[in-house]
């Protein structure tokens, strides 16, 4: 009997359990448990999936890097694209894809990737640099300079100072190329302030200052460089050129002589030295020379100018706006003055030397405009005219 009762009771108990389980609170608890279990399962699945994706992405990325180093840009693009299939937003993959696209000269596509990367990390140095290069290639100077500046102040993964310096040098190169010498000079000053004592870097800075027509800074940089490496022929020549441009001919002569001593094959420096020596030798205004020597130099200059005038037919008037002779030409003036330019005439008349030299300078200036840059003694006289502008005996 008890067994029969038990048999009857068990379906009842079962149905009671079922009823209980079907109550909403219980169902909700069961649903929560099911959700948690499913979540855990998906999390495990997700980890396996992501591991696989990462491995595949890395595999394609490594292939891409290998292709990039072999300059096989087309293959590299495919590899990086494949890598991005597995990690669509991977910064490094995208950056490398952009680099590979740039390698293939597909600037528009590369630009799209780089801009996307820039949105994500505007402080990334390489992205800014590449965007700057693209802008520069497109001729968008303002944008290029902005990106270059961002790259200069950006974060670089390694050798930050060196990278920043190189970016700045690239920017300066671009500015000089586009003849924005003022901007280039400003960048150079910024760069020189942070420059270290490396003579090569200092010499390079001197070269760039020279290209920016800032000879004073150039000379200073060359001198700094020479303190560390006094025998560098290229730096010596650079210093010589800078001094020459600054009309410090004695100093220029010193540096150029040293440069040629270090590098006898440097023809440009030799030529420049020759001119410098002529300037120093032919200048009748120099001190510590005798009166007769001065007279001799005036006569020599007058004769040289006359010869230059003969070689180059000069129209009436002075291109520089000075010394216009009404109704006459420089040639007439020269011919008119010629009889007076003798040793005796110059010694008798103190003002005649000035008059003669004034005509010489006008002739050299005018002929340099009409007949091209002079050379030899004519160049020396032109340089003396610039040096002595306003100076008189």
């Amino acid at each position: 009997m008890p067994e029969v009762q038990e048999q009857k009771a068990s379906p009842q108990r079962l149905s009671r359990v079922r009823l209980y389980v079907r109550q909403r609170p219980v169902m909700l608890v069961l649903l929560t448990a099911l959700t948690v279990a499913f979540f855990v399962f998906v999390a495990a699945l997700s980890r396996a999936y992501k591991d696989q994706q990462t491995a595949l992405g890395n595999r394609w990325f490594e292939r891409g890097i290998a292709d990039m180093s072999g300059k096989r840009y087309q293959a590299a693009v495919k590899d990086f694209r494949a890598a991005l299939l597995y990690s669509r937003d991977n910064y490094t993959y995208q950056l490398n894809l952009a680099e590979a696209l740039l390698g293939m000269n597909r600037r528009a596509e590369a630009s799209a990737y780089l801009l996307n990367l820039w949105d994500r990390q505007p402080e990334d140095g390489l992205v800014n640099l590449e965007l700057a290069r693209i802008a520069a290639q497109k001729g968008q100077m303002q944008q290029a300079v902005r990106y270059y500046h961002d790259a200069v102040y950006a974060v670089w993964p390694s050798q930050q100072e060196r990278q920043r310096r190189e970016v700045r040098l690239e920017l300066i190169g671009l500015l000089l190329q586009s003849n924005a010498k003022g901007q280039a000079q400003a960048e150079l000053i910024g760069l020189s302030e942070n420059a270290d004592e490396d003579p090569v870097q200092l010499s390079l800075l001197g070269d760039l200052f020279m290209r920016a027509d800032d000879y004073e800074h150039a000379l200073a940089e060359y001198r700094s460089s020479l303190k560390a490496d006094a025998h560098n022929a290229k730096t010596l020549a650079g210093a010589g050129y800078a001094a020459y441009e600054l009309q410090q001919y004695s100093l220029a002569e010193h540096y150029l002589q040293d440069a040629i001593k270090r590098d006898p094959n440097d023809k440009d420096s030799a030529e420049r030295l020759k001119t410098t020596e002529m300037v120093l030798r032919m200048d009748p205004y120099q001190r510590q020379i005798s009166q007769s020597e001065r007279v001799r130099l005036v006569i020599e200059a007058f004769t040289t100018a006359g010869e230059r005038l003969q070689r180059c037919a000069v129209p009436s008037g002075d291109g520089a706006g000075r010394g216009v002779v009404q109704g006459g030409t420089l040639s007439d003036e020269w011919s008119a003055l010629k009889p007076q330019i003798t040793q005796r005439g110059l010694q008798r008349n103190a003002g005649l030397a000035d008059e003669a030299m004034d005509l010489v300078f006008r002739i050299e200036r005018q002929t340099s405009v009409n007949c091209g840059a002079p050379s030899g003694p004519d160049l020396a006289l032109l340089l003396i005219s610039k040096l002595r502008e306003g100076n008189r005996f």
Partner: protein
Amino acid sequence: MSLQADPESEVLADHAEPPRATAWIYEHSPRNVWRAVFREDNFFLVLSVFIGVLSGLAVVCFRYAIDWARLYLLGTGVVLTPLRVLLAPTLAGLVIAVLVIHFFPRTRGSGVNQTKAALYIYNGQIPFRTAIGKFITAALAIGSGHSLGPEDPSLQIGASLASVLGRKMRLSRDRMRLIAPVGAAAGLAAAFNAPISAVLFVIEEVIGRWTAGILGSVVLSAISSVVVMRWFLGSESMFRIPAVEMSQPSELIAYAVLGVVGGIASVVFASGIGILRPAFKALPRWTQYFQPAIAGLLIGIIAVLGAPQVMGAGYEYIDQAMHGQFTWQFLAILAGLKIVATLLSFVSGTPGGMFAPTLFIGAMLGAAVGGAERYMFPYLTISPGTYALVGMGVLFAGFLRVPMTSVFMVLEVSGNYSIIVPVIVANTFSYVISRGLQPIPIFDMLTRQDGLELPSMEELREEDILQVEDAMQPVEGPVLDAEETVEKALQHIDGSRGEDLLVRLSPGGWSTVTRDHLRALASEGKGTGKLGPLLLVPRIPYLHPDLPLETALRYIERWPLVPVVSRANFQQLEGVVSQRSVLDRYREFGEG
């Protein structure tokens, strides 16, 4: 509704109402709070969150399954080997056909329509088997390169999961009907990573109406599923969105051109399905074993011949098109080939959705139109990325015929609201052209091809709604005043027609009285008494002219005349409605 409170119930309420503090303590007792949580409407909201979470998890698994299928069937690189490209979709097609015919017959067709069928026909029932079948077959199809998308299967997986949960939770029939759309929104939101668009789509295309009860659940499920999806797959948008720009308003003309082209392409696409799907279905049954395989083979051939972009969902190529990586001529070819490939996949009965192909075609077409316009009018500052984005919306509006979703989808995907004007302009053109040339929307067409008759959401949206003013008639006879005497009222009605008379109450409200009742009052010697207190019905409801006519149906049976009053002045009578006038109006409407 402007029904005045029933005075009887007011009295009852006055007596039954306990003191406020007591009532508050009673309402907030733990037992009542517990009961309130599990009351069906609240429980439904809680369940919506679970539906969202579970659908999100299922969609994440589905995405993994597609990726794994692609990996093992097509290979790991971007350059696919021709042998795999030809074999993978063909062999997968054979397997899919066997699975669909023998194990999961309900996985054929559109998930949207099956969700609608669950809502309108099957009381929210979608077998769980359908979800499993859709998961396996769609993952295989998309992964092997069939030109279909994961959104529609995700939607159906969500709906099916929700239906199972609803059954297990023993929801009422009304709630059960609504639960499938809740799951559908969750599935679609997770697949698109776009909760607003998913909610709008479900409201616009599945449910067809905005009701507060369902909207809360749909939003909750969509949000929870997106949160889960982002947890696992990240929150990045589907595409790298290029800089969106429109420098001159005159560019809107160019976008209008895109709308026209998109509208025509939508019609071509929809007509293709309209013609080919019944034709394929009419073929002998044994051919169904080979239809997906042949479709796969043809798609493989297209890929081998130079357009592998048409395989699969193609999101990565949409991204590339947005960034100007194809010429406009190639983009136009890709759009055409994708239409062909999607038609082949879909009409062959391969399970999968058309959302992704629609986006693909739209993006390619948009970028192609943008590129062509830039070629012809170089002074326009046209960005192909912007055109591709707008193009996606254009196809959505024209092909799927969901104008609101199409706008919000583009905004949500791009995250850029400055694009809204071009999107609206282009989508409007596309929608209007598509509607003009293809009167039956694609989802309705598919429903009819499947032998079902589900309500057309487009027709519902555009249906004329009768209002009270359509059945309103002028008042016959005088309007009495509750302050006048019975005798005066009898004098007023003398010579007028109509048995029932309106009475204007003081200070406000309306009632009715019959001639017989007035005469009876007079014969009882109450002729000098004021009419108001002697009325049998102290107050009747009133309506406003702009209310839907169905509102009147609630009152016309009980009250012979229902006053229609101005909203500005409730004492100003605009007319009356009666049972006869309302039914006459409905009859006229039904006769067209």
